[in-house]
């Protein structure tokens, strides 16, 4: 796994480096024109934002109910990645919206619930950093609440009438728009996997440092 991380990061860096040419070759969307090309980075960020919430929630459930301490490290790693990919989503989205809709933000269900999930990640990480003893269990509960938000975010555009495009735009994409999208998605996913693994390793090494200090105090 240690050897896989540089490979994944290198491959995703090459793919992300090539992506502007592939995206440039993609056709313009009929109503939005050039600005729709933000979609090729916005969509992978948004999906991985939701995936991070799912991983954080599952790892927290394993930590809480399975009593596996190592799962907590994975939960923290996923939460931090959720915050990073959520920030990418919440910055690229308004830049797209300003041109396409004429406003930076609308309080519709998709945007509001995404912001709520991002705030849950912020709260989770602040709690884990400054919460003191017992914050691990409280944080795990918060992560489960964040995970419950994911299906709501996903279906919100299909259930309520919003300005945000529906989920059906992705499966119905024409091939010349689909290729750049899945190319970027693969690059983002590889980067996400490598970063998640590295961030979890950082958390496990921190636990090891604490154990070494405790052993030193006892000796």
């Amino acid at each position, binding site marked *: 796994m240690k050897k896989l991380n540089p490979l994944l990061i290198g491959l995703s860096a090459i793919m992300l480096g090539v992506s502007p040419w592939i995206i440039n070759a993609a056709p313009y969307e009929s109503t939005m024109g050039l600005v729709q090309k933000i979609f090729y980075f916005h969509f992978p960020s948004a999906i991985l934002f939701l995936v991070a919430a799912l991983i954080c929630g599952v790892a927290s459930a394993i930590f809480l109910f399975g009593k596996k301490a190592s799962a907590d490290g994975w939960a923290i790693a996923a939460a931090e990645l959720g915050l990073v990919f959520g920030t*990418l989503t919440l910055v690229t989205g308004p830049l797209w919206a300003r041109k396409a809709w004429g406003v930076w933000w609308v309080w519709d269900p998709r945007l509001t619930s995404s912001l709520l999930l991002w705030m849950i990640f912020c709260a989770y990480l602040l709690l884990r950093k400054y919460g003191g003893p017992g914050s691990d269990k409280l944080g795990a509960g918060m992560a489960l609440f964040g995970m419950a938000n994911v299906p709501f975010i996903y279906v919100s555009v299909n259930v309520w009438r919003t300005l945000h495009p529906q989920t059906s735009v992705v499966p119905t994409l024409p091939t010349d728009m689909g290729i750049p999208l899945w190319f970027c998605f693969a690059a983002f996913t590889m980067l996400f996997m490598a970063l998640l693994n590295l961030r979890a390793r950082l958390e496990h090494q921190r636990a090891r440092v604490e154990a070494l200090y405790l052993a030193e105090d006892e000796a």
Partner: protein
Amino acid sequence: MRFYRAFLMLLALSAVVPCAMASAMQPPSQSEFLPVEDIPPGEQIPAFTMVGAAYGFVWVALLGYVWSIASRLQEVESEITALESRGK
């Protein structure tokens, strides 16, 4: 005295004439705001700016995060090495 009067007249004229000319050139003040349906092309936000800002932000944020993880990991691993060598 005559010269002084003429000088004052000239001074007053030099102050009034440009003011009168400027006020004649000024457009009438706006009494109401009217919305426009089609935004003139010069007023529209260029899409390239938005696309460039979005892609630039993603690149900078991801590179910054990779660097942040690498430096934190390096710090912790050097701490582990120091603690393990102290324990031996």
